[in-house]
């Protein structure tokens, strides 16, 4: 187990209270209640709602799209099986994220020897982004690198982080989850999360230093 809770990583997560995201359609609580009563269609709606986020989390944690797909499938099946024990004291989103984080870390531990990268393609819309133009402009230290090289180096640097550090970087810097929510998800204090984030970013900077000269 990586987190400070001292519990086994693949166990059902402790329920924490996090404000729910605004979504179209019926609220999560209603869908969860129906799914608990055996309505598979209601669970299908929950899958549609959170599939992208859970895939992004597992993909950024593993840098391997095949592993991310397998993990996403396992996470939702596990959530469905554990749903009867979900009491609704917290949001479904937080509960699901905690399952996802624990399962991903556990999966990586089991497949520690075989770490290959299999990355998704960049969306064409990236060329419309101002930040992309800044990075590839004449004054940028990264101007001589191709987009695929940048992608590969960043993913390699991410994979060199420890599971704890990578988790906070993915949740905070890539998915925009606030410190307080991450603390509840991983069972650590807000101070610990800030500290992990600081050291993770320092390590990433040093890993990418040669490209930033």
């Amino acid at each position: 187990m990586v987190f400070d809770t001292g519990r086994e990583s693949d166990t059902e997560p402790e329920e924490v209270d996090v404000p729910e995201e605004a979504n179209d359609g019926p609220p999560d609580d209603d869908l969860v209640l129906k799914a608990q009563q055996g309505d598979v269609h209601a669970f299908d709606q929950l899958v549609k709602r959170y599939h992208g986020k859970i895939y992004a989390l597992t993909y950024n944690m593993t840098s391997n799209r095949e592993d991310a797909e397998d993990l996403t499938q396992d996470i939702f099946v596990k959530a469905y099986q554990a749903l009867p024990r979900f009491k609704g004291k917290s949001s479904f989103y937080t509960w699901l994220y905690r399952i996802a984080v624990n399962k991903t870390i556990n999966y990586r531990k089991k497949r520690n020897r075989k770490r290959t990268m299999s990355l998704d393609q960049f969306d064409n819309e990236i060329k419309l982004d101002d930040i992309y133009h800044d990075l590839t402009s004449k004054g940028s230290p990264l101007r001589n690198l191709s987009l695929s090289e940048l992608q590969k180096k960043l993913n390699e640097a991410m994979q060199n982080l420890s599971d704890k550090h990578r988790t906070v970087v993915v949740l905070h810097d890539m998915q925009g989850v606030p410190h307080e929510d991450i603390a509840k998800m991983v069972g650590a204090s807000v101070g610990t999360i800030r500290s992990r984030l600081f050291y993770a970013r320092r390590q990433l900077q040093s890993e990418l230093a040669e490209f930033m000269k």
Partner: protein
Amino acid sequence: MTDQVNHTDGGKRLCSEELLDKLLHLKQYEVPEIARMTRNRQNIMREVRSASRNQRKSFGDLIEGCFPWLFAEPKYGVAMLLVAFAGLQYLSVNARHAALSDTGIYTSPNRFATYAQPAVTSTNAVQYDEISPHLRLFRERQKNENVKWVNYLEKE
């Protein structure tokens, strides 16, 4: 001099942090193929439906859920089964009595033709119709015939 060095280091760190932020920002443009994601969602729901079927309760589980005392105390269960058996027996006997009717052949939508049933006396002896006296049941015996009739008394 030291302040100047610190200022330069701080500036570099700020610059590298900014670059790192920009690099991490670009990660959001790494998107999966739509077809793969659709297939993945379908696989998830297939697994979920399979798990749902496995979780579905059998008739035995349903009974146990509705009448937990029946299984918690086996003696009550056995007593319940005996009562149910006796009740069914009683019902079947009543049903047999209610179903008794005359034998008949259906001849038209509104009529039943009944068999001429043998009349039964109080001694349970069956009365048959009398045979007319001119009818011979056995032929006369021939002279050269070797056939011996059973119960036929021969006078030498």
